[in-house]
């Protein structure tokens, strides 16, 4: 990988392959040039190396956290609230047709 050679990485520091970068980019629907893949791959690798610091902590006795705030059961009543009109809802749509958002043909 470009970032591995560039920085003389040890095996242990190699966290992400070009294939991984391409897969993640594909899932996010991002089209990347070879230069971008190299640049972002290096950055993603840095992030993963940095995150590894967390492994130094002893977490075996700690429950996984579901939310960072000490909140639970934030609920609303089942009451109808005025939303947007059709015109307002479609205001920013690049294209519309008969009250619908127009998108490229998707067929299952």
């Amino acid at each position, binding site marked *: 990988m470009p970032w591995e050679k560039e920085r003389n990485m040890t095996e242990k520091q190699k966290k992400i392959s070009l294939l991984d970068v391409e897969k993640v980019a594909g899932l996010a629907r991002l089209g990347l040039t070879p230069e971008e893949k190299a640049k972002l791959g290096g950055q993603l690798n840095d992030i993963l190396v940095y995150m590894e610091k967390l492994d130094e902590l002893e977490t075996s006795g700690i429950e996984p956290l579901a939310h960072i705030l000490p909140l639970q059961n934030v*609920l*609303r009543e089942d009451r109808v609230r005025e939303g947007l009109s059709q015109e307002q809802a479609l205001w920013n749509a690049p294209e519309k047709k008969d009250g619908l*958002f127009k998108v490229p043909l*998707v067929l299952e």
Partner: protein
Amino acid sequence: MTTKHRHETNLIFSKKKLYETVIGLEVHVQLKSRTKIFCGCAAGSGGEPNTRVCPICLGFPGVLPVLNRKVLELAVRAGLALNCEVSEFSKFDRKNYFYPDLPKAYQISQFDLPLNGPGYLDLRLEGKTRRIGITRAHLEEDAGKLVHFENDGFSGVDYNRTGVPLLEIVSDPDLRSPREASGYLKAIRSIMRYIDVSDCDMEKGSFRCDANISLRPVGSEKLGVKVEIKNMNSFKGVERAIAYEVERQREALESGEEIIQETRLYNADSQKTFSMRSKEEAHDYRYFPDPDLTPIVLEREWIEGIRSSLPELPDPRGDRFQEQYGLPEYDAGVLTAERQLADYFEAAAALTTKYKTLSNWIMVELLGKLNEADLEIKDSPVSPIQMAGLISLIEKGAISGKIGKQVFAEMFKTGKEAEVVVEEKGLLQISDTGELDRIVEEVISNNPGPVDDYRGGKKQALGFLVGQIMKATRGKANPGLVNQLLRDKLYNP
């Protein structure tokens, strides 16, 4: 069959492998709340596109979803009715994928900590009971609706359905035949309607089902490669789609083909399943906890409070109908399939002791007429009290069962009491001996042939004479009385 023959048959079977069908179902039930799961938009169906939307369900940046309390209650209710372990701690997760019906590019669902954990349903089918495991029943939001304009080369999106609350009920791979699959679905639907958490209207899409189907050699424990079938929108459709798919997989396996894990769509017109255009990548939803929603923490006491508010469910109620009212299993099953129908029966049963007669009248006449008029039991023009009134007239002998049908038809049309209809139409059974005497004598003198036949020993001639009397009285004569009078007069002219 000789021993030799039997041996040969076994050999043939051992050459051709026998397969076991393994089916698991994912059922989506639309919960009956007024508003959507995470915002205040109305949760109804139909209407002009994009008129029940707001910045939250349209996925605008910076908005915060908040869970609907009613939805949470309905989901717990449903979980308890399916014998699920309701979690004291659960959370929401984001399921990430790109599709135009999903404005946020993720669906809020539940991944590793669902609201309702393992449960089961005791499926009764053809006299047998089998326990079908339920893996989980979790909450999620519905997606929008796509309309395709193939000729014009575009699709349109209506986000009215986006954010409508769904409970996804996932079964274990415990179902073994298309009949079991549709039986399980009907049972789930019946329970959901009983506990009033959903309308479960398949046509309107408030009850949807996907099936996972695989085959494995009989005796094997390992599951085969499964195929997911979507787009089955009736109970018949589910049965047919699964039957077709089982046959397709069996043929493929027998000819040495490999089954590919894929999603196939059912086409109700051709009654076949078709492979969906395969996606280049396997699903990778990258679930992670939704930071916009807080965890749900439920207290045992609150959960038990909901449990105690559950009504008697269809199967136990059917058992009670057999015991308490002495009804046959079939009657009890029909009468308890819908809660309103069972309530109707019990309301009428409180006013009569002729339970089987009542059951017959409800199952044949009432359900027949409701079906003809496309009405539901709750809209029946004949109330349970009126139904009981009709039955008591028949039991008293005021009208015959045959006239009763005529009276019932009129009650159904007008909503009048049985007694009123009988009075207005002059249908009261003639039990007055004097009046019947006259008619019987008239019939005897008008039909000398059959009278002679009867006196000469042809007993079946009596039926003809009874018929003539019924005709003359337009069916109103008390049949017991007619027989008695006729015999008396024929023997003692």
